[in-house]
């Protein structure tokens, strides 16, 4: 088992290195950092001197090593556009995106899992058909459309909820949170629902498919044959076994949440990392783009590692070897 964990960790490191390499290649080959930083007035000689100082003439590998080293120490370079340290720009925006993402994920799980279980256990009910139809449409509507529709309904027509910004925030150490004010929650609601809807439909369909598969298995049939009470059968046996593969997918979905947050933040003008990234694309602000890449990959890899560890904790087949 230890071997398994170690193997996964090494794989994660590999993925991170690959992503770092991609980011670094971005820096090196797309556009010229010097021209970005200095503008047209600087003489060629000065530009050359700057190039030498910053070590841009060094061999590829040593630059890459320096790049990685810097990153590990938290030095992410400077934005072409704002001249600020990228690290600051990103850390400023991280809380907004993370809070949005986590709340969206919670919404999707809170409604998605029970819906999935229900539709699996009662395949012919009228509610099941309704839910399935709704989710089918839900999966087909792009996130931004959902956002627009919610804004239109609740923001414009009904005027109940704000349509942009974060509302009131509270500073906790380095973390600027909007979870502690009513206005913060009101502002969070629509974007979180928008972001959560797509995830919700995916989760529901997945849980449903897995559960139906589990209900067909031999051990469920055997438990039925033994007269195990139906409730126990559904929850203790079927649901627990269903969650094992579902956990992996949820880990993957977290990546989706972060990705779609770009769209949601755009629609609602939510001041998170996604919006920052979009702006950096528009202005071809390479440093921000590259760092965003690495940060996202890091979150993703971290979540997946946690999921794998959970997997090992839950499934005894991975933990214990055969005794005989």
């Amino acid at each position: 088992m230890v071997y398994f964990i170690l193997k996964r960790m090494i794989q994660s490191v590999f993925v991170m290195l690959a992503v770092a390499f991609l980011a670094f290649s971005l820096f090196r080959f797309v556009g010229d950092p010097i021209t970005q930083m200095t503008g047209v007035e600087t003489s060629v000689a000065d530009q050359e001197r700057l190039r030498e100082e910053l070590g841009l003439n060094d061999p590829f590998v040593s630059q890459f090593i320096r790049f990685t080293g810097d990153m590990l120490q938290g030095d992410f370079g400077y934005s072409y556009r704002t001249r600020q340290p990228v690290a600051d720009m990103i850390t400023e925006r991280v809380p907004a995106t993370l809070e949005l993402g986590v709340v969206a994920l919670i919404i999707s799980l809170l409604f998605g899992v029970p819906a999935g279980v229900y539709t699996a256990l009662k395949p012919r009910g009228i509610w099941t058909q309704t839910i399935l139809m709704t989710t089918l449409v839900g999966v087909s509507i792009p996130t931004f459309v959902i956002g627009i529709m919610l804004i239109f309904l609740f923001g414009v027509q009904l005027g109940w909820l704000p349509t942009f910004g974060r509302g009131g925030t509270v500073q906790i150490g380095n973390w600027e949170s909007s979870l502690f004010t009513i206005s913060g929650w009101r502002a969070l609601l629509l974007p979180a629902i928008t972001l959560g809807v797509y995830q919700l439909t995916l989760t529901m369909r997945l849980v449903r498919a897995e559960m139906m598969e589990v209900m067909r298995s031999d051990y469920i049939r055997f438990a039925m044959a033994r007269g195990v009470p139906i409730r126990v059968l559904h929850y203790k046996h079927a649901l627990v076994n269903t969650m094992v593969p579902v956990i992996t997918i949820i880990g993957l979905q977290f990546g989706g949440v972060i990705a779609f947050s770009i769209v949601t933040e755009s629609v609602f003008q939510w001041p998170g990392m996604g919006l920052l990234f979009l702006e950096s694309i528009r202005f071809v602000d390479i440093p921000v783009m590259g760092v965003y890449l690495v940060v996202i990959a890091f979150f993703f890899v971290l979540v997946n590692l946690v999921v794998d560890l959970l997997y090992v904790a839950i499934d005894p087949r991975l933990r214990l070897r055969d005794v005989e």
Partner: protein
Amino acid sequence: MLTIKDLTVKFPSRFGDFSAIEGVDMTIKPGEIHGLVGESGAGKSTVGAVVIGLLQAPGYVTKGTLTLGDTDLRELTPAQAHEARGDRISMIFQDPQTSLNPLMTIEDQLVETIQAHSDASKTEARRRAVDLLEDIGIQNASQRIKAYPHQFSGGMRQRVVIALAICTDPELIIADEPTTALDVAVQSQVLDLIQQLAKERQIAFMLITHDIGVIAQVADRVTVMRKGRVVETGDTAQVLGAPKHPYTRALMDAVPPLDQKIDRFRVPAADDTAVMQGDTAERWLLEGQQHCLTGLALENLTVTFAGQRTSLFSKPSPYVALEDVALTIRPGSIMGLVGESGSGKSTLAKAITGLVTPRYGTMILGDTVLPFGSSRSRHHSSRQLVQMVFQDPYSSLNPRHRIGDILTEPLWFYGFVKDPAERTSLAASMLSLVGMQPDAMIKYPHQFSGGQRQRIAVARALLARPRFLICDEPTSALDVSIQAEILNLLKELQARFGLTILFISHNLAVVRQMADDTAVLRDGKIVEVNTTEVVYQSPQAKYTKSLLAQTPVMPKSWRQ
């Protein structure tokens, strides 16, 4: 005690309602082991499913009565029916691996079952569970009970399954192919256990199986089913020894005996089987033959696979599939290779055909040395001279190719026949030779039954004009009567065309019928090899003796 009268079950389909079982009558007394035997599609599992109330939707019972003691099982509400399960009727399935919840300990599964049907406290239930496991023959039960299912071996797992079934003291247990997935030795133990339980606890068993030997060994009474109807029922000795119904008689004729070799099985004449006429194919096979019979000699053959890595620090020890195998197959003879699952039989076949690369050793086909798998060129002569008939007729033919394409492929690939039209007619003729209608050429594999597919597989092998044929469990997936036809076919073809055959099977009786010589394989090592007569009549190795002793057979005294 259990009385079934006129039971009929139908399944709706877009072609109209299909009767799974019709007019079935059966009675089982307390403590009786009642065998329910039949070939695939007979409806045996359906009967079991209906009794315990777990009939697969959309099947439904159209008529009949079902009573257990005084209770009319059909009159129960779903809740009452569910209570009766475990309490009065229980069921065990074929595969012990998938029957247990992999995420729960044995203890949890036992305790939950016991508590579902009695007022026992947790400690009380646990104590009962431990006692039960020890009764069943699991040593060290109080510790083993904390383990998970995957930590038990196959035989132990089936015991755990049985423990789960009896922990609620049911009156009747339905056992659906309980030993089919088990090795002979383990099967023997489990059957003994069933007999013990029936006698000591007066539990009735409905033993559903297709294996006549198993019925012969443990069943008190037996019911024979065919295509959803009961064909014959009575005391086991009478039904198996002196069957009254022609179907039962034909069935018993098809069972390969363990104690003697018969020349050909007696099979009922049906349209498909007869013919065996394919003159063009026959001439083609005989012409251009080197006419030399080809033998195979194996020396020191060892095959290892890389082990599973479980620790970062130590290299995993390799798994030895075959160790120092030495075997000589006489040209033009049939060599039987017997072994249980995991003994290495299939690995041997793969080594010979080049699918697996041996560690070391020599393989000599005729007078040429066979190169090892990875170094064997794709155009090596052995690829044509050695052909194989596989076990699973449902996966040995490409489901997306027409039969015609499947059969003409070897003709095209080896360059035997250049003209496509000629290829087609030769292939059609070969089909006739194996007893199939030539119109099969344009059809797809799924349109044929298992037995027919095996015939096609044999035709395909022959269309490569081989000298050496490996048959890897060719009839293990087939019904006993179809098996008899295919074995007859193989014997006929071997005699006519001078093929040398390596016949691999775990079924000792089948090998007895087919092989001139027999080798016994155990854990990758040849334990005994000799002429079939000697191996079966006077075996030398202890392992061979115990295999023979544990194979369930019908006592000779029953046969007229």
